[in-house]
């Protein structure tokens, strides 16, 4: 088994899919010649491996990067584009939301837009709110888009490969805080299907639903609570849409308690969707109020102590769980 960071795992997925299918190409800002040369970054080395025809450095133009993907997909290619930081998704959002997500429907099913939008995301690198703004709830509210948010190198690789092979537009959100920590990645070829959550830790007292970087925080909390005899089931959604309601509901029916953890700001975050689904479909099983552990309703501040305050930590998760036990 290889040990790879999530950046490297993504790099492997891109490489393998590009080797497999000539129609796959990459476009984005600084994905070929970049300012970083770390081998841990997701696109390092791909320009050398595949050449400037397939690895396209673009101008600073998020709308046309996204348009490039939409048009190229319509015309038969399989674009994988990168949005450098999540807040810049706004600039691509017309192309993704009004076009990639809708044009197939508008054609009555005659066209398809098999494209992947990789978005680098997350707080924690001190650049402030114009670089750090978790907007997964936006895309998860758009029929026609699938939304994937891996938490481990293994999942990232398998899910990205599925995303590239999917015939629908997929938003693939990568928390940059996960690029560097190594994790197990199988040596042999594999994919992981979209739309399947993964129980990263089983438990019986409370269901903790999370995704992306907050998985680590959640597992830490679960570990701490285990020492106190509290058994936490940690459900890593992996894919926000389509949402794996079966896994979610089965877990809540078992534990009767729900905590949702995400880094995005609270109000209007995707925890609300989880809450609604559970309250609709597993109400009878619920024994306690919901708790959300999320970023507060503020922009991400730049100063280190302020940014740390923003990011949810294991202590908050432990406290939230204890409140409802």
């Amino acid at each position, binding site marked *: 088994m290889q040990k790879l960071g999530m950046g490297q795992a993504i790099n492997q997925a891109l490489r393998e899919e590009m080797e497999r299918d000539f129609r796959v190409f990459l476009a984005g800002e600084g994905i070929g010649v970049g300012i970083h040369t770390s081998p841990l970054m997701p696109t390092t080395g791909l320009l050398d491996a595949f050449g400037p025809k397939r690895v396209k450095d673009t101008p600073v133009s998020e709308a046309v990067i996204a348009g490039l993907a939409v048009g190229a997909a319509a015309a038969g290619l399989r674009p994988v584009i990168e949005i450098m930081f999540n807040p810049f998704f706004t600039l691509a959002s017309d192309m993704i939301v009004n*076009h990639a997500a809708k044009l197939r429907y508008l054609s009555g099913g005659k066209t398809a837009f098999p494209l992947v939008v990789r978005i680098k995301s997350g707080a924690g690198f001190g650049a402030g709110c114009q670089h750090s703004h978790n907007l997964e709830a936006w895309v998860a509210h758009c029929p*026609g888009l699938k939304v994937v948010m891996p938490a481990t190198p293994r999942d990232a690789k398998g899910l990205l490969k599925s995303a590239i092979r999917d015939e629908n537009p997929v938003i693939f959100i990568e928390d940059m805080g996960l690029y560097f920590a190594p994790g197990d990645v199988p040596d042999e070829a594999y994919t992981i299907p979209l739309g399947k959550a993964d129980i990263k830790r089983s438990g019986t007292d409370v269901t903790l639903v999370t995704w992306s970087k907050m998985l680590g925080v959640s597992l830490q909390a679960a570990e701490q609570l285990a020492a106190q005899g509290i058994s936490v089931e940690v459900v890593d959604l992996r894919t926000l849409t389509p949402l794996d309601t079966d896994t979610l509901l089965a877990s809540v029916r078992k534990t009767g308690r729900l905590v949702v953890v995400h880094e995005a700001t609270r109000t209007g975050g995707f925890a609300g969707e989880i809450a609604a689904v559970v309250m609709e479909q597993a109400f009878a099983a619920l024994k306690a109020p919901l708790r959300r552990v999320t970023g507060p309703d503020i922009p991400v501040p730049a100063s280190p102590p302020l940014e740390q305050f923003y990011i949810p930590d294991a202590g908050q998760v432990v406290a939230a769980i204890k409140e409802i036990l």
Partner: protein
Amino acid sequence: MSIPKERQMEMARTMILARQFEETLADLVRQQGKIHGMMILATGQEAVGSGVCAALSANDILITNHRSHHHLLARGADPKALMAEIFGKRTGCNKGKSGTLHLAVPEVNALCTTTVVGGGPPIAVGAAFAQQYENREAVTVCFLGDGSTGEGSVHEAFNLAGLWRLPVLFVCENNKYAAAQSYREHTPVDSLAARGAAYGMPGESIDGNDALAVFEATRRARARALAGEGPTLIECLTYRWRGHGETDHQLYQPADEIAAWKKKCPIDRLVNTLREAGALGDADLEAMRATAAEAVADAVRFAEESPWPEPQEALDDVWVA
């Protein structure tokens, strides 16, 4: 290089068809109240659709905008399927999902119509990229309005097309208005074509009511694109006879301006040229008109007789399963 006669006839035929198709739509909306929703017509601008499409090959891709009927009919889309779609019927080319505003007819390589102003050019850049990537012997044509050049997305698309020398033709229909705003109220310069220079792209301003000039400009730009010389911006100077949509009162369009442009009718113009060249006789013209009328009548009949979609069908076609 002269224009093959059959191309000239095709232009006349598709212009007449587009005119009749849209006049019928106006009547269906205004007098008969049979069609629901916005109705955006291109009456007076037919030479652009017909001139461009006559110069294309089957492999070429079309990306068009909210004012698209003349483009699509010129490209050879089935009037029945279009009409049924505009009515919102299940037999429409897009099963009623699109209506008049976003007609997609991949059968004739018209891959998408977007009604987001400025939405077309970035997508056209993507389609042209695919053609370049796979060395297809083909170009992408993107229709856009004068008003759309206010959108940043258009600029981004021009810039990337110029940079990567993509095989794309930006055909700007400068019909003097963006909704109720006249050209110089939305753009600080006289020539849109001149903006091509900002992107290393030739820009040409032509008489958009002269189908033959449109054809020639398209042929030249297409040849350049196929030769790897990149995109071209073609500004077709034309005029919108009717309102922005069929609920528009056109109060901002001076009556004499409308009248003057009606005198420059693109159909009369081509027909007269063909007549003078002896290429088109009265009988030919009558036959063309009759064929168009029949096609439109058939289309309306087909649309009216077609069933509505079942409500539940709204749930289909979001996803590729």
